[in-house]
């Protein structure tokens, strides 16, 4: 395991992007690591593109330089393309394959690339690519709202995080409502298994 990790989490406003970055940050902090997080939110959360930078280990700034992130966790495939600018060549990319169409596309003023094109382009940037149908796995876990936890589990399964899995589980458990812990744990494991297979 590396002592340092620069991670970018990408998504659409309202998807729970910030909560995820804080879960990873909390886990690293529990593991005794230094953490800096930078969040792009504000009015940007009204259905706009949102991303956060998570820097584990010693760093100078909360902002990751372009092309230097070790990993990209994308809650939406189009947003993976947008934030791939941060990802280093052959860095880890974990993508939710479920698209959310922007209003510009719905209004017929722009086009959204087919998922196959997204996969091909991402694969040209990195051979270390995972596409996860998080919504399907979340439903399998018993609650459609656990899609983010599926993604978190998938990231953990890629064994790139510089701390043990239990820290992440703990911070996830402490961030979700108590009656949803069971479904989230199941979602986490399903996500984890999906990349290990």
């Amino acid at each position, binding site marked *: 395991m590396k002592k340092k990790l620069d991670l970018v989490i990408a998504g*659409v406003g*309202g998807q729970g992007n910030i909560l995820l970055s*804080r879960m990873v*940050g*909390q886990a690293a*902090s529990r593991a005794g690591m*230094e*953490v*800096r*997080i*930078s*969040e*792009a*939110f*504000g*009015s*940007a959360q*009204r*259905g*706009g*593109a949102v991303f956060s930078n998570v820097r584990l280990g010693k*760093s*100078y*700034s*909360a*902002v990751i*330089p*372009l*092309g230097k992130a070790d990993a990209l966790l994308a809650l939406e495939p*189009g*947003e993976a*393309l*947008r934030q*791939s*600018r941060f990802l280093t*060549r052959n860095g880890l990319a974990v993508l939710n394959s479920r698209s959310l*169409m*922007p*209003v*510009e*596309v*719905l*209004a*017929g*003023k*722009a*086009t*959204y*690339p087919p998922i196959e*094109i*997204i996969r091909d*382009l*991402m694969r*040209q*940037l990195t051979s270390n690519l995972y596409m996860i149908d998080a919504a399907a796995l979340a439903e399998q876990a018993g609650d*459609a709202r656990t899609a983010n936890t599926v993604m978190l589990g998938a990231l953990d399964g890629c064994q790139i995080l510089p701390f043990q899995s239990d820290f992440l589980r703990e911070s996830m458990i402490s961030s979700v409502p108590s009656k949803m812990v069971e479904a989230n744990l199941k979602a986490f494991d399903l996500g984890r298994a999906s990349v290990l297979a």
Partner: protein
Amino acid sequence: MLITNHAIARAAIEAGVGVATGYPGTPASEVIEALGSVADACGMHVEWAVNEKVALESASAAAIVGVRGMTVMKHVGLNVASDILMVLCLTGVKAGMVIAVGDDPGAWVSQNEQDSRLYAHMADVPMFEPSSAQEALKMTRLAFDISERIQLPVFVRTTMKVSHSSGIVRLGPIAKPSRKAEYVRDIPRYKTQDVYVQALHEWQHNQMKSMRKLLPSLKMNKLSIKPGQKLGVVASGAAYNYSAEAVHNLGLQDKVAMLKVETAHPLPDEKMKLLLQRTRKLLVVEEVEPLMENYFRQLAYELPGGPCATVLGRRTGDLPGTSELSYEIVASSLANLAGVRISRDKNEASVRDAIAKVVPPRGLTFCPGCPHMGTFYALKLFARKTSKRKIANMGDIGCYEIAAFPPFEINDSSFCMGASIAQASGLSYAKVDLPIFASIGDSTFFHSGIPALIDAALNNAHVCVLICDNETTAMTGHQPHPGTGLTASGKATKKIMIEDIAKAAGIEFVEVTNAFDIMGTYRTIDSAVKHAGPSVIISRGRCAELTRREARRAGTIPEPYMVELEKCRGCMVCTKEFGCAAITWNSDMKKAIIEPSLCVGCGLCEQVCMLRAITPLRKS
């Protein structure tokens, strides 16, 4: 782990603040939010004031009678508060008074990217500039002590990239709640006029002189310089972080002298002079204006024999003259000056170009179930029926600004809080030959819309003021305002009705409509425009985010709507003209589909569909 804004709030608690006030605005909103939630436990008065001027007036009055005060706002809020600021800097305070201001270089969520450091120089009061959450805690606590010592308010300035970053923060002990207020009549100090002002202005300059003397003992503004270093970097805040990382990544640690500026005012003269004498080139990295860069040139004149270094930065074009900086911008400028080449992989660059070409745009949209969609759809229908098929609609600051973008494109401007009403009146006085509207939110109306409404009544402006009332300050994260009947701590308080204010302001046509009833709002707009003179329509509907949150808490699930596919003829009115984010277009079937997990069941699209193809899921 704390976000910088929470670290600032924590510092206020540790410093024993008695009165904390503010007005919501990204990137500063989280400070008062956090304090509101612990107000009772800390024995602190915490409020979302009606605007920034009121906020600074009340908190600084507390500081004048010996109770520590804090006011928090975004950069443009400081314009509103500047009226009191420019006098407060003359009278000073007795107890510590800190003004925390959040700047937005790049204007990501603001109407401009003004640099608050210039205010510290104009008012001539100290300003600290942290670059991380930990520093924010430390410097804000220090700011209270310094303020008390030199009896002037002290600024803590953060920029968006710092305000919204988090890190591990070591906390300090919490002070006993603030001291007891002591009211002392001191007319020469607080009745500013004529002879008193001259004395106060001189006093203020003396206080700043003592601040300059105090500066070296504060151990701020770290300078690292070694003999032989010909290149120097001077930076502050987020720009310092980019610079430090760039120096490291370019392997220039031994070659570059570095000054981290933490006091934007007063600037560290001696350290800056040393750099001017010892280096050959000085790159000044700051957001946004070339404040330090210009100050260096000023200092150069004070050096016997003149400076040795050439000062470079935003003014000389070595860094861009506007906008937010980034690691990439700083690294490339630094590499250029140091003669280091940054290599690029051509194949990688072409892949990245190919990706950039297909990235779909994703602009701001109204949330599914937003009441503003109903209001602006009604306004759009009205505009189409006018003789010129056009209206003029002056906009304001808030979520309803999104009506400027597709598919509405009916919000023509946004200047500053409350501007819409007087601007609309101005169009009327200038005899613009169109139906004239001002659209303004509920919180914005309370903030600074009221004087302009009185003005419109007095001068009989022929304008229709459309108050988009979603019962919260939505854009900045649902803070309460005078119309919500809630305090910053979420307690019940007096609820002030916008319609009462409008009537009291002398407006004869005042109507409240249901924002979720498109035709009802349309008819009200139609009769308001026919009214000779100013009119007010309060288009009221609860913010969809609040509705969603309340439903989640109550354990209820909103009843979504659905498209009856056999009735849908694919006219696309619901996707192209209305554009709710919960409605998607299925290009295979050539029909609209409602995504049930996003739909909150507001029923607006049912009214928009002329074929009655949209119905509640439950009914069908």
